């Protein structure tokens, strides 16, 4: 007997289908989520952003080699982590098209009528002792079901169909989020700047020279500048800062076009650039030398092995002095620069104190602070927030259950059966109450008559 050859698909088509099937599988999705979770754990164990971090950990040589190969001090920007995210995106995309959408189409259709025998497969099966289908339908409608009468004298009912949108909505939210994050990576600018009161900075410098991160498609900004008019702090007590504030002005063509007071949690935006009150620090000393007020810049460092901030040599009378401040709470130390160039401490004084040095009156008014601002431009934010919102909506939809109910006539009443995409106990309780409402006697006895 001759065999009839079955039509064979070309190898590339079969391979691509197998590949699509693989990439749409839940197992791959779960595996990728767990892999991203594991990679993220690594990033929380090894300090990030410090290339020497591995040297400070006590590791055996093989472990160190593996961690170095994984770029473990820079996990979240490493190539393999980005590949993982890319594969996750691919899995989301393929599974949405191949699995979620077809399932959704089925779920959104009206459930078909089923014959009596098929009701044996439903997890909940009850007998309703009533000859009136309308009573059953009415009891179901009262519980939020949409009820359709069938051709065979029975009915089909369902509720919570929209909850099946959950997976699709969540996946769409993740797409929006990932695409917006990509957009952010391409277009965002993030800078950190420090300004002393009265100091200005052109915007091209803010988003250029001081940019910590600048996407390849980041917009150019020019034509205006930001000026710090005033910076001050409020304290709970001398050692505890309550809040810090900056008065900012935007200056365009020599004119102030916008002004705003900012503090932590109260940013300011102009021309797509956001300014955040981020940090502060010691920037200088307010002094009066020979009755002439002046501000001297402070620099961090340890030129004499002392931790703190120093000025360049300042002329007081005929002498040269380096002024040293260990911290804002410590007194100012004046160090005279001797003939050989080495400084020697000669006096210390607190804010508001005056003394005469080499015949010249010298007054220390106090430390002057700089305001640390974070400047940012990110056109991806609306997309990120939209993605956040859509994901939350999708996950919240999953809380509600889809319930489908069928009734077919049997002798003395109806066989009521149903199924749910949750556990069946809730449905059992609900349908039991339907039975109880329609035929209280039958429920009492627990048996059909």
């Amino acid at each position: 007997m001759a065999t009839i050859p079955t039509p064979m698909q070309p190898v590339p088509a079969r391979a691509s289908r197998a590949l699509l099937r693989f990439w749409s599988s839940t197992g791959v999705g779960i595996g990728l989520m767990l892999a991203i979770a594991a990679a993220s754990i690594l990033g929380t164990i090894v300090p990030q952003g410090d290339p020497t971090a591995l040297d400070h950990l006590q590791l055996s040589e093989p472990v160190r080699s593996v961690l170095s190969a994984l770029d473990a001090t820079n996990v979240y920007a490493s190539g393999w982590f980005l590949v993982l995210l890319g594969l996750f995106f691919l899995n989301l995309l393929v599974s949405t098209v191949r699995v979620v959408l077809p399932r959704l189409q089925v779920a959104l259709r009206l459930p078909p009528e089923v014959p009596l025998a098929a009701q044996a497969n439903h997890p909940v099966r009850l007998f309703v002792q009533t000859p009136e289908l309308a009573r059953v339908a009415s009891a179901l409608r009262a519980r939020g079901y949409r009820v359709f009468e069938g051709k065979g004298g029975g009915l089909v009912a369902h509720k919570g169909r929209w909850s099946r949108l959950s997976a699709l909505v969540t996946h769409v939210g993740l797409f929006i989020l990932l695409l917006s994050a990509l957009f952010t990576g391409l277009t965002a600018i993030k800078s950190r700047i420090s300004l002393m009161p009265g100091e200005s900075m052109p915007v091209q410098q803010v988003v250029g020279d001081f940019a910590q991160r600048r996407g390849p498609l980041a917009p150019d900004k020019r034509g205006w500048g930001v000026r710090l008019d005033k910076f001050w702090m409020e304290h709970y007590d001398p050692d505890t800062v309550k809040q810090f504030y900056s008065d900012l002005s935007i200056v365009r063509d020599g004119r102030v076009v916008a002004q705003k007071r900012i503090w932590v949690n109260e940013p300011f935006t102009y021309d797509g650039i956001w300014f955040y009150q981020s940090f502060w620090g010691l920037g200088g000393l307010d002094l009066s030398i020979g009755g002439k007020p002046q501000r001297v810049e402070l620099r961090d460092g340890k030129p004499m092995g002392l931790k703190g901030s120093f000025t360049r040599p300042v002329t007081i009378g005929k002498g040269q002095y380096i002024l040293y401040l260990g911290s804002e709470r410590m007194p100012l130390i004046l160090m005279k620069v001797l003939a050989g160039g080495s400084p020697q401490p000669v006096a210390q004084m607190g804010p508001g104190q005056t003394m005469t040095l080499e015949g010249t009156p010298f007054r220390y008014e106090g430390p002057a602070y700089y305001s640390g601002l974070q400047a940012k431009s990110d056109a991806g934010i609306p997309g990120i927030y939209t993605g956040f919102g859509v994901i939350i909506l999708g996950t919240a939809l999953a809380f509600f259950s889809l319930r489908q109910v069928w009734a077919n006539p049997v002798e003395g009443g109806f066989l009521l059966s149903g199924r749910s995409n949750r556990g069946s106990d809730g449905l059992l309780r609900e349908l039991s109450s339907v039975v109880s409402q329609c035929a209280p006697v039958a429920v009492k006895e627990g048996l059909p008559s």
Partner: protein
Amino acid sequence: MIQFEQTLVTVLLWAVLASSALFLVEQVMSQVWAGTVARVGMGLGLVASAGSMVVRYVYAGYPPLSNLFESLIFLIFGALLIFVVVDLMLKPKYLGMVAAPLVFLLIGFASVLPARLKDAHPLMPALQSYWLKIHVSLMMLSYSAFLLAFATAAAYLVLYYVGARKARLATDGGPALASAPQVAGISLTMPASSGEAPAGREGQLAFLDDLTFRLILAGFPVLGLGIVTGGVWANHAWGTYWSWDPKETWALITWLIYAGYLHARGLRAWRGQKAAWLSAIGFISVIVTYLGVNYLSSSLHTYGKLL
């Protein structure tokens, strides 16, 4: 802590401790009254935890969510609230026996914290925002839901492993099961009484499995919302919605694990024992997110380091 607040925490501690013992009496000695009194104890604990938060809010002048003690009290409040709601709606049989000791452990932990983690301190600049109450309360509520999901999963596993042995012993030579009533040749399900958890070991297992699933389904979007509001707050305060800080990274890890649970249960039909173990793994991740990250690399969220 002021005296009245201390008194309320003491009431909370004793009420939940007594409930733990009484739930055990209810199950082991089949004493219905003990269960009733235990539920009253849990309700009293709920009122005491809410009262303690109100007192702290009034005298500290900020939402009591800024240090480890305050967040623990909110976590306990959330767990008791969810317990009371679930208990009133579904009357789960074994939940109290597992949940009450877990909540008691949390209260004990909160009570023995050193003063620096317990007392009210002025808020640092970054925490002076309305986002504090929104973000932290959502995170804590999700942890509360996951705590109870862990309790139901633990109850499932105990019933599964202990009950399986008992069931094997009982069926050796035991009476045959009564056959279910039939209509048109189809076996019927026994009707359920309204508001009652199903009877029988298998029914209880299915019920606990479903309850774990529902609690995770409830906690999952709340955790998502907590992460999202944290991102929005961080963007508002620092201009960065995500910075791979250990706390936010572990919150994401927890979210991913529970997302894995929901996919495994929904699409791969992982039910019962496997799902219960996955829920337990998720809760371990919650503990690391809440407490463990304080011991990892530097974090913007380090506020509860004990040592």
